[in-house]
């Protein structure tokens, strides 16, 4: 479920846009440095894969399902900046072409999921892969889902403190950290197990495919 426009106060989304803009500029420079007929389709395909991964339903007991983010998989396999730029493009496409999510929530999603989630996933993967590649991929997938949930819970829970009226009533998202932290962290800690399992599967597959296309 994406956060629509209108729940995040400008006092938060404007500084987040400032931070995200700096990272986007740096990311674009890094990607553009070797943006050619090989890297541009790569980035486009990663974006498309990241977008489509969000439509893969992760089955949960009781007949319900949640959706994969793929951030851990993209970061572990293609690096932080590629994952960040692809995820940011996905959020922009979802907001501006499908009305899913929002323009004012874009920097929060991009920074939490695309950057912090990708950075943690990549770091954990690089640190642990020498011991056990499968475990490293699993934990990359788990942290790639859990850390963004923590950051989004913190951002949402900060809304009543950031924007309130004269008597202290909230003007945007109404719940504080006492509600947002358990509401987001408990389900995402469990959903991360599924995301981790799919990251193990996808990571192995990507390596095999890379070898195949390299020799093609």
């Amino acid at each position, binding site marked *: 479920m994406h956060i629509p426009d209108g729940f995040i106060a400008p006092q938060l989304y404007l500084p987040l846009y400032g931070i995200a803009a700096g990272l986007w500029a740096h990311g674009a420079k890094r990607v553009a440095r070797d943006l050619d007929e090989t890297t541009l389709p790569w980035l486009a395909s990663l974006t*498309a894969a990241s977008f489509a991964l969000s439509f893969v339903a992760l089955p949960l007991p009781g007949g319900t399902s949640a959706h*994969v983010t793929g951030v851990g998989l993209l970061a572990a396999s293609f690096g932080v900046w590629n994952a960040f730029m692809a995820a940011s493009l996905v959020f922009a496409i979802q907001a501006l072409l499908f009305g899913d999510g929002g323009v004012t929530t874009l920097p929060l999603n991009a920074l939490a999921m695309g950057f912090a989630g990708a950075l943690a996933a990549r770091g954990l993967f690089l640190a642990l892969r020498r011991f056990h590649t499968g475990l490293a991929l699993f934990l990359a997938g788990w942290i790639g889902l859990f850390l963004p949930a923590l950051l989004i819970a913190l951002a949402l829970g900060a809304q009543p403190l950031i924007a309130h009226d004269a008597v202290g009533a909230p003007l945007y998202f109404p719940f504080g950290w006492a509600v947002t932290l358990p509401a987001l962290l408990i389900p995402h800690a469990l959903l991360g197990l599924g995301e981790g399992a799919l990251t193990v599967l996808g990571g192995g597959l990507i390596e095999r*495919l890379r070898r195949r296309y390299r020799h093609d």
Partner: protein
Amino acid sequence: MTERGKFVAYLMTLFIVSWLTAPAWLAAGLGAALILCGRDAGRLLRRALLATVAFSGTVSLAYLAHSWWLGRPPPLGWLLAANLRVLLMALLTFLFIARVNLFQALAFSRRLSFLLVLAVSQSMGLRRTLAEFRLGLHSRSPRPAGIKARYRAAAHAAAWLLDRALANAHESAQAMQSRGMFR
């Protein structure tokens, strides 16, 4: 007005609306947006409602229950203002989507346009095939599929998706090379 001008106008309007907290101003804004929608008003309002109702509805009901639990009066002012703001901003987005060609709005950058066209066209294809995978699982299962079958199907779908995405990248790169792009 050019497509790029409309894009800037949309972003500016969204920015102004995000500051509004008075229900009267938000209701006036919603009225103005509906007038701008013209004959599409009903369709776009429905889409905006459907896109936001899950999150807004959950938060609104939870906040109402929370206030009741604490013995406070119902937060009618917040309910009105927050839901009007969310609906107005979503309506503006759907009006933008209906009236503005995003590809033309971003045509000032050749590479950004390439990237967007490639990403969106591939996304659409991948999404359509994933929907077919889902329908395939339903049609193969006389009874609702169990969690193991659904997990296996999700893993196959993700694997196919990554395979297809990498193949697309490879094919697009070869197509661009053969046409002398970036030279």
